[in-house]
């Protein structure tokens, strides 16, 4: 088990290193001079040159990369030149919105997908199965931001149950803060739940045909009990794999939905940093996304080992 962990942690570090290189190169080749963008097209060329020096833009790329990564490792994120605040604090503040949003969305996704997928699989070919499959097809076909607009119209404008946008802030109390996350989380979750429900259904159907399910029935378990006691955990390996991938999709989806709901989260920050040419901020935000995705994949790998006792040997 410890060798398994060490190997996975090394992979994790290597992935992040590669990600930081790719991010740095991509940000380098982005057109536009940040100093000129900040100071405006009418600015004095000397002021622009001075700002370039202050931002360290005149140094060679390798030196800037090392300075960036070295700073991150030392916990030094620098100061955003559009927000004029330390980037570390800014990221922490935004993460405190996006992570709960993604977590709530993932919880909703799992709850909807597992119940719909297992229901459909257990009644393969029935009207209920066909209905679930049709709904999930719809869920996959319709983009999340459109769901978001429908949800705002119904639950915010018509019924007034939830705010249409903005974030109450954690200082306003957990209830108020969570209320502002409900609609975006639902909009995020519906699409992912539709995908995951289909994955769950096919994984459960596959498991239902396994020999050990027949053994479970031969022991005297009912169809339902055999599914719960023996089937579900076996189906979970495929489901957890897709859930890991979906968490990455959720963070990407958050970029769009945080803009629809005017939530000051990490996605909105990324969007604004790119439009402002705040390259230092862009690098850090994108790398943070990468950290989240890699960390989730690491968790998924650990989950495999928890679910399936054979994983430790083959790892």
């Amino acid at each position, binding site marked *: 088990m410890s060798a398994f962990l060490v190997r996975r942690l090394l992979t994790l570090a290597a992935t992040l290193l590669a990600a930081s290189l790719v991010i740095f190169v991509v940000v380098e080749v982005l057109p536009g001079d940040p100093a000129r963008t900040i100071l405006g097209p009418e600015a004095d060329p000397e002021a622009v040159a001075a700002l370039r020096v202050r931002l360290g833009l005149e140094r060679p790329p390798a030196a800037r990369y090392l300075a960036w990564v070295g700073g991150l490792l030392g916990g030094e994120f620098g100061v955003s030149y559009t927000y004029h605040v330390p980037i570390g604090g800014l990221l922490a503040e935004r993460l405190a919105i996006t992570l709960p949003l993604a977590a709530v969305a993932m919880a909703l996704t799992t709850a909807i997908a597992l119940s719909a997928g297992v229901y459909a699989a257990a009644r*393969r070919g029935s009207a209920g199965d066909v209905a679930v499959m049709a709904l999930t097809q719809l869920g996959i076909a319709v983009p999340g931001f459109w769901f978001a607009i429908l949800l705002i119209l119904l639950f915010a404008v018509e019924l007034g149950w939830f705010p249409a946008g903005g974030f109450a802030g954690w200082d306003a109390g957990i209830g108020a803060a969570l209320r502002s996350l409900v609609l975006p989380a639902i909009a995020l979750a519906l699409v992912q739940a539709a995908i995951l429900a289909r994955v769950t259904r096919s994984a459960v159907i596959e498991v239902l045909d*396994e*020999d*050990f399910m*027949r*053994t*479970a*029935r*031969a*022991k*005297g*378990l*009912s*169809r339902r009990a055999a599914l719960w006691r*023996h089937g579900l*955990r*076996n189906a979970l390996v495929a489901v957890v794999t897709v859930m890991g991938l979906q968490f990455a999709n959720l963070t990407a989806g958050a970029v769009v939905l945080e803009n629809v709901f005017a939530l000051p989260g990490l996605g909105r920050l990324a969007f604004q940093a790119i439009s402002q040419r705040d390259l230092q901020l862009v690098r850090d935000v994108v790398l943070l996304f990468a950290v989240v995705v890699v960390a989730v994949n690491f968790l998924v790998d650990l989950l495999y080992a928890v*679910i*399936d*006792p*054979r994983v430790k*040997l083959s790892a």
Partner: protein
Amino acid sequence: MALLDVADLWAVVEAPTGEAPAVRGVSFALAHGRTLGIVGESGCGKTLTALAIMGLLPRGVHGRGRIGFAGVDLLTQPEDTLCRLRGQRLAMIFQEPMTALNPLHPVGRQVAEPLRIHRGMGQAAAYAQALRLLTEVGLDQSARRMSQFPHELSGGQRQRVMIAMALICGPDLLIADEPTTALDVTVQAHILDLVRALVDERGMALLLISHDLGVVAETVAEVAVMYRGRIVERGPVTAVLGQPAHPYTQGLMQALPRLDARRGERHRVVPGAVPPLGPPEPGCAFAARCALAEPACRTSDPPMAPAGPDHTAACIHIAAARGAWRP
């Protein structure tokens, strides 16, 4: 009264092209403590017969007829009654011990599970009994194996686990579907000895499904030969395998490899192949491959006719076939 009384059992496979009966009017009885083997080629309907008795026919296959078990017709029982019987009075072991055990549960938990289901036993008591039985079926280091997973065991060890799991509630009837087919020959012999010993000791009835005439000859007292969904011959093992009366059984016996075969002598086989599953046609199912077939064989279904004491065969040429038989 017989423990198991199967009468005119049909198992019909639903196919896009219509219904195809895979088991066609099978009848046999098995008394308490007796042993019966069903032999036949792949696809002759022997496994479906066993699954029909367990009430575990796969999707798209329907059972018809009557399966009397301890006086009730299993085919008409509600699902919860069948659940109470399965694992408790009716138990089954399967061919593939690799895939028939849940890969994610420790062995001890799987063996103890029937006690927890049927007897409502607590974990400690059920595990203690599982350990006793695992030791009894000859699983070495059984205490350590309780917490191991199926992938940590060999094929023979896994089959011992399957046997312990099937026997833990003390069933009246054990159905063993090709229990040794997936195992090495030396392990096969050990497992067969074990099954035979346990059946004797516990007075269970045994229904052994196998394509292997040798396995059947060693393990059971009576045998039924199936071909294309029908029983074509049945009787005591010594009679059926010693003096087969049906041309198909004779073909099977002659197809057995022999140590005393002369050099260069061709290995004999049953000519032709089992036709694919299709709608029922009149006449003897074996007529198309039978050397003795004549027009009458293709028009009406031959009834089971006596071929010796307790020995019957479904052939209108029993006398001629008998005369032609040379081992």
